């Protein structure tokens, strides 16, 4: 299972909404960084992901290893949560 989940989102992105809904349905808590509301965090997202796209999901696992998922991908999210 995941120790910490951070989701980078934007206001208009339906895939971000879907990602949040997915974690909600699986009862997994997450932190959200909305790059529209926190534009100063935009560069941080580009730096860690190399992407200019949202959603980006950063999962810290129980053994402190991190896994990044770019985009909304149900099978990938399921496997990272060990579901």
């Amino acid at each position: 299972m995941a120790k910490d989940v951070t989701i980078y989102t934007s206001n208009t992105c339906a895939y971000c909404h879907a990602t949040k809904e997915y974690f909600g349905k699986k009862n997994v808590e997450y932190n959200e960084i909305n790059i529209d509301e926190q534009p100063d965090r935009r560069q941080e997202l580009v730096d860690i992901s190399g992407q200019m796209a949202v959603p980006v999901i950063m999962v810290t696992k129980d053994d402190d290893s991190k896994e990044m998922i770019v985009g909304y991908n149900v099978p990938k999210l399921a496997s990272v949560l060990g579901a």
Partner: protein
Amino acid sequence: MAEKQVILYGANWCPDSQRVKHWLGEHDINYTWKNVDDGQEIVDEMLTKVDGTHITPVLDVDGEAMTNPDEAKLDELFNGDKESVKYHDVIAIGAGPTALAAAIYTTREDIDTVLIEKGVIGGLAAVTDMIDNYPGFEEGVEGMTLAQSLEKQAERFGAQIELAEVQEIRDEGQYKKIVTNDGIYAAKAVLIATGSDYKRLNAPGEEEFYGRGVHFCATCDGAFYRDKRLVVVGGGNSAAQEGMFLTKFASHIDMLVRGDHLKASDVLVKNIENNDKITIHFNTTTDEIVGKDGKVVAVKGTDKTSGEVKEFATDGVFVFIGLKPNTGFLKGSGIEMDEIGFIKTDKTLETNIPGIFCAGDVRAGATQQIASAVGEGATAALMIREYLEEQG
């Protein structure tokens, strides 16, 4: 699992006996067949096991007898250890406007309905910035808003939405099996409403810069291009609509159109023409996405009339060149499709496999409009109801 002792009593003229025989055969289960037409002693033997109930078939598993088991019961008896199957009346694959509309109709009539969605609830409609032509919204409606109200409306009547990816559909007669990354479902009727997705260019640089300068979703990634230059590829409705949306952010947009005119609605064409942030380049192919130091810097295209190769300096590219049906998972299912991969149906929206229906953008002949998707969803729901009534 130790092999069970299975005896089946029935008759060759009895469809349910045949159904159970067929099921046992398909699942490689050894059983003894006792035909009640072979003599009174077999009838008597059968009757003692079920307290005299005159119903065939009778299935005896390790001494426990029951009359006419349905598929769910058979699964429970024989497959319980292997896989836990979730049974429903109707499963819709996809949760876009089509499936949500269908679910509003089925669940209002207490038909147990589950939608399985691998992407965004609301489908492509949900990722569309503004929907201007969906009836009932005089000022237009944001795609995400429409998607959320459809979802809430369907859930109000009891529709369940599961987030999983369907990998395979198996036709097992009365029940269809739906294999997902999150377990196996079974339903008496299936609605395929998986819609379509944006096509890729297949040009050099597209894969390499995907998400880092090459994008397919303006509402998702447009905000990264505040005061930047963009290229939009495509000349249809979605290119025009999303191009207009991107002018909220971009300082300038070069729109590369392969044909000699825009194939979009008049309103959109006018908006595009009157927007001084957009320059349209007709008869222009998109040949390559050019990058430097890990970033997109230009798009190479060819002017088909002069043959001249042009380079458009840009910070990012948004591609909207049409739609492809989401039917990859149906390979080997036996469901008939056209040469592009859209699913063929008859007038009742049923595919060539009885009990498997198809509606919305993924159906061959669909008009690719949200209003028609919703209409087809409602029609499919009524046809499915009829099918379920016939099946009893």
